[in-house]
C-alpha cells in the first residue's frame, strides 16, 4: 500500500495516466476498507490481500521501468488494453475471497454456493448481483472464483506443455538424428489427431474433474511447443555464439540452458499467450460435451455451458435469461481478448523481424 502511495506521489512516475489510476485505486481501497464487511473479509484472508498488494506494486514497477519493452508496449493502445485486462483478471483472482466470500460451512471455496436446486435461472437481485443460473448457482461467485480456475487451468496446462515441449523439443533439435526422428514422429501422431476429440477420449477414460481436463488439454497441447522449440533451435544452433560456447568446452546441457533456450524462447512466450486464451475455450467445449469440471465447480466453461439451455429464452421472451449468457460470456470473451492482444503485443515487440516497422 505504501509503495502504491509513494509511486503515485513520486515525481518520477512518468505517465499522468498511471498517477490518476493509482489515486483512484487508493480511494477505492480506502472506501472499501471502510465498510465493516470488507474489513472482516480482508482480515480473514491476509495472504490473498497481500498477494494482491504485491501485484499492484509489481505492475506499477513494471510499468514505470524505463526499458525498451515497456516503451514499445505503451505506444500501442491495444497492447495497453490487453495488458490492463489481464492485470485486472489477475487482481480479481487474487482478491477472490474478499470479493466473493465463501460460505462458512464450505469445504472447498471453488464450489459455487447455491440456495436450493430450482432448475430455472433467477435474475439479478440483492445478494445475487449477477443473478443465478440454472440450479441456482450464483453467477457472481462463479465468475469471480472462475477467474482463479481459469488461471490455474491455463498455468498448469501451459507449464506442463512447455516443460514437455522444452525437454523433448530441445533434445530433438539439439541432438537431431535418430532421437529427433523418434520424437518428431510421436508429435506427428499427436498432431494428426483432432485435438478436441483426443481430449474427449482422455477425459472420457479418466473421468470428470478439472484435474483431468487440465491433463488432457496438456497432453494434446505439448507437441506444438516441442515443434516450435525444435525449429528455433535448429536455426539458432548454427549461430556463432553456440559454436563459440562449444569450442570453449561447454557441456551440452549448459549450452542448451545458457545459450540455445534463452535465444529461442520468444516464440514460446507469444504462443503461450495465445494458447492461454484458447485453453479456456477448449475447457468450455469439453464442458459442452459433458466432460468438464465437476458440476457446481467455479469454472467459466461450465457456467457458459449451463447457459446453453437458456440462450433461446422462453416462447415470446427470448431474452428473459440474458444474464446466464452475458456474464460468463463476457468474462470468457474478455479473457480471450486480453491474452490475444497481449500475444500480439509480445510478438510485435519481441519479433526482431518486425522491429522498426512500427
Amino acid at each position, binding site marked *: 500500500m505504501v509503495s502504491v502511495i509513494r509511486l503515485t506521489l513520486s515525481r518520477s512516475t512518468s505517465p499522468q495516466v498511471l498517477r490518476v489510476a493509482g489515486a483512484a485505486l487508493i480511494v477505492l481501497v480506502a472506501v472499501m476498507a471502510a465498510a465493516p464487511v470488507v474489513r472482516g473479509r480482508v482480515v480473514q484472508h491476509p495472504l490473498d490481500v497481500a498477494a494482491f498488494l504485491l501485484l499492484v506494486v509489481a505492475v506499477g514497477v513494471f510499468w514505470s521501468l524505463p526499458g525498451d519493452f515497456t516503451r514499445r508496449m505503451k505506444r500501442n493502445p491495444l497492447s495497453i488494453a490487453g495488458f490492463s485486462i489481464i492485470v485486472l483478471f489477475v487482481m480479481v483472482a487474487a482478491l477472490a475471497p474478499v470479493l466473493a466470500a465463501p460460505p462458512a460451512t464450505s469445504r472447498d471455496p471453488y464450489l459455487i454456493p447455491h440456495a436450493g436446486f430450482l432448475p430455472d435461472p433467477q435474475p439479478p437481485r440483492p445478494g445475487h448481483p449477477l443473478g443465478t443460473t440454472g440450479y441456482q448457482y450464483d453467477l457472481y461467485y462463479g465468475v469471480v472464483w472462475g477467474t482463479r480456475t481459469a488461471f490455474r487451468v491455463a498455468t498448469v496446462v501451459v507449464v506442463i506443455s512447455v516443460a514437455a515441449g522444452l525437454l523433448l523439443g530441445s533434445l530433438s533439435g539439439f541432438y537431431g538424428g535418430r532421437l529427433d526422428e523418434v520424437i518428431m514422429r510421436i508429435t506427428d501422431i499427436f*498432431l494428426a489427431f483432432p485435438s478436441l476429440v483426443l481430449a*474427449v477420449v*482422455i477425459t472420457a477414460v*479418466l473421468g470428470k474433474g478439472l484435474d483431468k481436463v487440465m491433463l488432457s488439454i496438456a497432453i494434446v497441447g505439448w507437441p506444438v511447443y516441442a515443434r516450435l522449440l525444435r525449429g528455433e533451435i535448429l536455426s539458432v544452433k548454427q549461430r556463432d555464439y553456440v559454436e563459440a560456447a562449444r569450442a570453449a568446452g561447454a557441456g551440452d546441457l549448459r549450452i542448451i540452458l545458457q545459450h540455445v533456450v534463452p535465444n529461442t524462447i520468444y516464440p514460446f512466450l507469444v504462443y503461450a499467450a495465445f494458447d492461454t486464451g484458447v485453453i479456456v475455450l477448449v475447457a468450455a467445449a469439453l464442458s459442452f460435451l459433458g466432460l468438464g469440471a465437476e458440476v457446481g465447480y467455479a469454472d467459466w466453461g461450465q457456467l457458459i455451458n449451463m447457459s446453453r439451455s437458456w440462450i433461446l429464452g422462453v416462447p415470446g421472451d427470448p431474452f428473459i435469461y440474458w444474464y446466464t449468457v452475458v456474464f460468463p460470456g463476457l468474462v470468457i470473451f474478455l479473457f480471450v481478448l486480453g491474452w490475444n492482444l497481449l500475444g500480439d503485443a509480445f510478438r510485435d515487440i519481441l519479433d526482431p523481424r518486425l522491429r522498426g516497422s*512500427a
Partner: protein
Amino acid sequence: MATYIARRLLLLPLVAFGVTLLIFALLQFLTPAERAALFVTDPRQLSSIPAIIRKYGLDQPIHVQYWVWLKQLLHGDLGWSQTARMPTSQALATFFPATLELTFYMFIPIIIIGVWLGTRAAVHKDQIVDHFSRIFAISLRGLPSFVWGLIVLMVFYGGLNWFPPGRLSLEADLFVKSPEFHRFTRIMTVDALLNGQPWIFVDALRHIAGPAMTLVLVEMALLVRVTRSSMLEVLRQDYVRTARAKGLAEPVVINRHARKNALIPVVTLSSLLFVGLLGGVVLAETIFNYPGIGKWGAEAAVQLDIPGVTGFGMFIALITVFGNLAADILYATIDPRIRLQ
C-alpha cells in the same frame, strides 16, 4: 521433391497405427468391466457383463487385443461402431462427404473475408481500421462456438426460418431416398446438380448455411492474424519500398506487389485450415444436428465407442498427413525459394 513426397507418404502407416495404438493404450485405464459396460445400455443388462468380457476378450493383455483388432483390419473390417449403428468403415463413408461439403462451403468465405480484413489491418497498421478488424476477429473467436451456433440457430431458424438444422428438409429427404435419385458422390449439393434437381441443391445449401456461418465467424480470426503479420513483413521488404519509391500508387503497391507475396503463408495455412476445420466442426455439427464426421467422432469419443473412435482417428490422421503434404508441395510450388528435402 519426389523423395520428399515418398518419405512423407511412408509416414502414413506410422501415424495411422500410432493413433490407434494411442487409443488402445488410453483404454487400458479402464477395467475390463467398464469396457464391457460400453456394450450395454441399461442396468438390466449388467448380468451379461462377464459374457461380454469373454466374447470380446476384454480381459486379454493390450497387445493381444491390438493384434485381434489388426487382424480384423487386414480383412478390411474396422469393427462395429455402436454410436453410428453401422460398421465403422461405412460410417466414415457416410459422414465424411457431409463434412467435406460443409468445410468447402465455409472455407471460401473464411479465405475471402480473412484475407480482406487482414490486408486492411496491415496496410493501416495501428490505425482505427487495424484495431477494429483485429478486435472484431478476436471477439468472434472469444466465445465458444456453441454460443454462436445457438444464436445463429435462434435468429435464422427460430426467427426467420431461413436456415433449418439437419441435412435436408422432409420433402427433399424423401426424394433423395426415392429410386429416382442417384447418389453419385454422396456430396449432396453435387449429387443434386448431377440429378438435375436444383431445388435439392438449394435445400442442401440452406441446411449447410447455419453451421457454416457459425464456423466462419469463429475461424476467421486466425486468417486475419496471419494475413496481417505476413503482409506487415512483406510491406517492409526492399522491393515494396522500391515500388513506393518509384512513386507507384499505393493500391498498386498493395495489390500487385505486396499482397501476392504476402499470400504465400496464407495459402499454406489454408490447406492446414481445411484439415483443422474437420476437427473444428464438432460443436457446430452437434448444435445444427448436421450428420457429419465431427459430430459422430465426438459422440464416439464421449461414449468410448472403441472401433468408432479408432477408425475415426485413423482416418483423420491420414487426411491430416495428406493435407500437410499438400501444404508443403503448394508452398514449394508457389515460393521458389523453398526447397523440399
